[in-house]
């Protein structure tokens, strides 16, 4: 009985504490509460920082972002179980025609790097796209393979089996990575393809960028792909990939920026299909972009053009969401660089502004 009483008291106490938390009881009008987002792990460090900073700018609005992978973001967005989705992979043509009124809002640019854990090796392993693809195809199985050695004559490479690490969940990072492998390897393009979730020939599966980075850390002689920020925050050693111009480029914010510029994509309007937008593909044959890192990508927020189709949405909440996104593409961009992302070029910001102006709630514009 004593135990029951104790547990009951503790339970009531916690419930009471939670109710007292509530949130600041400011007098500012408008929406107070949580905005639910879910999706890509690629930009999660950035969105997490944005959410923390925005709650200081507009107390009372909490942006809760669940980092479950781009596949999850797309799924939840189409299921309408969240207020906004997030994905590094734009909707495919089929997905786009299956959803009415979707808007793509690119939020930031980042890069996907090949991180490895080989005791004794520091950053700077040089690999060509072809060799990398053969590693992920399971055709090159040892770190001491001749093809790797010939690219890195000064390094002492051990004759140990390579442990490949990939994503087990639906991932925009996977989409970008497999797009890249498809452009540098015909074998990859025909056997495996590019998508958020593929039939991996070899390797261990980790959940999220987190999971993959964790697996690489814990498994000596492993190699995997993660978004750049995860490699930086965890002091991981990364590959210098060869780009289409033949240069071996270390992944840095400058290299991603160079990539975005060189791609000089003509971007569609926010309400059109973005399935053909790809910095990776644009750079695949660009033999002049010497400083560009080949595996660079936008990451998108997905929202409905008419917010009223989302259950649980009301005018104030929709307005709060659009205001957050507006802040994110302007003031929020200052948080990108310190975390290893590339802020949006001004042309893209202008494009996004036009996109956000399209958002309505049952016809009433929100901005």
């Amino acid at each position, binding site marked *: 009985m004593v135990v029951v009483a104790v547990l009951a008291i503790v339970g009531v106490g916690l419930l009471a504490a*939670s109710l007292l938390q509530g949130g600041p009881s400011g007098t500012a009008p408008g929406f107070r509460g949580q905005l639910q987002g879910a999706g890509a792990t690629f930009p999660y460090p950035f969105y997490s*920082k944005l959410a923390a900073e925005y709650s200081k700018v507009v107390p009372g609005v909490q942006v809760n972002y669940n980092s479950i992978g781009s596949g999850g973001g797309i799924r939840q967005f189409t299921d309408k179980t969240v207020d906004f989705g997030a994905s590094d992979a734009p909707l495919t043509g089929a997905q786009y025609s299956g959803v009415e009124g979707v808007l793509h809002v690119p939020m930031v640019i980042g890069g996907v790097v090949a991180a490895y854990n080989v005791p004794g090796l520091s950053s700077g392993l040089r690999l060509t796209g072809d060799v990398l693809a053969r590693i992920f195809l399971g055709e090159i199985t040892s770190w001491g393979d001749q093809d790797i050695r010939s690219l890195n004559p000064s390094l002492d490479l051990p004759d140990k089996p390579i442990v490949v690490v990939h994503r087990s969940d639906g991932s925009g990072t996977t989409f970008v990575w497999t797009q890249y492998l498809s452009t540098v390897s015909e074998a990859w393009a025909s056997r495996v393809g590019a998508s958020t979730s593929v039939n991996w020939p070899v390797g261990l599966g980790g959940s999220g960028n987190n999971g993959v980075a964790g697996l690489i850390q814990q498994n000596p002689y492993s190699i995997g792909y993660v978004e750049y920020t995860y490699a930086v*925050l*965890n002091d991981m050693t990364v590959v210098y990939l060869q780009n289409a111009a033949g240069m071996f480029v270390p992944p840095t914010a400058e290299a991603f920026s160079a990539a975005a510029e060189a791609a000089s994509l003509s971007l569609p309007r926010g309400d059109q299909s973005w399935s053909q937008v790809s910095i990776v593909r644009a750079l695949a044959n660009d033999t002049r972009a010497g400083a560009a890192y080949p595996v660079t990508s936008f990451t998108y927020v997905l929202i409905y053009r008419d917010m009223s189709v989302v*259950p649980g949405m009301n005018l104030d909440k929709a307005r709060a969401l659009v205001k957050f996104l507006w802040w994110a593409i302007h003031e929020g961009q200052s948080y990108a660089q310190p975390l290893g992302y590339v802020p949006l070029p001004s042309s893209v910001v202008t494009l996004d502004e036009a996109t956000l102006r399209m958002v309505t709630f049952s016809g009433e514009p929100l901005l």
Partner: protein
Amino acid sequence: MKDILLKRRVKGRIYIALCYGALAVALVPLLSILLVTTSKALPVIDSQFVTQLPAPVGSPGGGIANAIQGTAIVVGVASLIGIPVGVLSGIYLSEYGGKLADLVRFLNEVLTGFPSIVVGLFVWGTIVMTLHHFAAIAGSIALSILMIPVVSRTTEESLKLVPKDLREAALALGIPKWRTTLSIVLSSGRNGVITGSILAVSRVAGETAPMLLTSLSSSFWFSSLDQPVATLPITIYYYAISPFVDLQNKAWGAAFLLMAFLLATSVSVRVISGRRVTA
């Protein structure tokens, strides 16, 4: 003759020693888990850990207070649903009986220890899809589904131990059956009912798989039952598979807190009831 007897004795001693060895083998992982969790958790647990929200990714500091709160609320609501239903169900099985009761009794045994991921799928398909988002209440419902068979069985067992005379005496006095059951039989068997309920609560407090598909997670305090919420098991999972050493350490801290709660309830239940409670 003596030789054979000796051989039999020695053989017997060896096998018995092997049984002790089996016990040792079984206890090694337990000790490892307890020791490692405690040693890795103690440096992490401080007042910041239990009172603060998680810090943004890559920034140090912060805590898991929202997960503690979330688990308390989700498990609390699950108990509010699961315990009354389970007790009522156990009462039916014990006091009324019949073919239906036999079937339900059997189903309860089958449902105990059922894969919780399947229950998660079920709640996702029904509640989450209807609500159109992940929600704390969906998590609570999933947990209550896992609780009901356990509470029902332990209630039934406890009530069956109450001697028949008690019921007959009450009925002879003209007290209606429902009053008899609630006021007399139930209170007589309350020890077993309470320990069974506590056991069920501790069983579901550590569940992770169904939460992945129902209440998901959150970086903030609990806001409302129809929104996602952070829970200790999910936090442990996400932090454990992350590459950030800071988060991995926090995972050990969260595991310590969760296990402290579970072990405390487990031990106290056994001590109170004195005998083994079938679960």
